[in-house]
């Protein structure tokens, strides 16, 4: 079984990538 904290860590990483994407992308449709 996978620990619950692994899922939370993955979600935090994906969220952080999303924030970076909002910062670096210019196209509003992609954002």
């Amino acid at each position, binding site marked *: *079984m*996978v*620990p*619950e*904290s*692994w*899922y*939370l*860590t*993955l*979600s*935090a*990483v*994906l*969220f*952080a*990538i*999303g*924030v*970076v*994407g*909002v*910062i*670096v*992308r*210019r*196209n509003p*449709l*992609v954002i």
Partner: protein
Amino acid sequence: MGAVAFVIIAGIAVGSALGLAFKRNAIHAALFLVVNLGAVAVLYLTLGAQFLAVAQIAVYAGAIMVLFLFAIFVLIPGKEETGPDPRRSYRILALPVGGALLAPLAIVLAAAPRGPAPPAAAPDGVESIARLLFTDYLFPFEVTSVLLLAAMVGVLLLSRRREG
């Protein structure tokens, strides 16, 4: 075995998210988003949330992504992002706002139990959701349908060609 599968799926999710964030071509980015949504749906399956996984595939990876791709093809076919950024000052706000939104997740992560994830809350998840949706949550469900109907009427009015 479960940990290995999780690492593989998580790697696909993170890799596709990076591709989505950094690919200059909007169509490629949208296709990376499809992969990402699929990987997240598989993660839902590993948590025993079958309904959520199917909804993720059908609604997001299916319907909404088709709409996204259609909009990209119509509005920016094959165009890459070049030139000066007109909204650079506003975009800087994304960092503090993102940090503020990430803080609660970090708190939950710090307090999370270190043991394995619990199985699905109910063995018959889809049936339970359907029963709750049409009994205890019938009013919010119907209000949502009215909201969607209002949105559809609004789209029809906005897209109607002006006569005369």
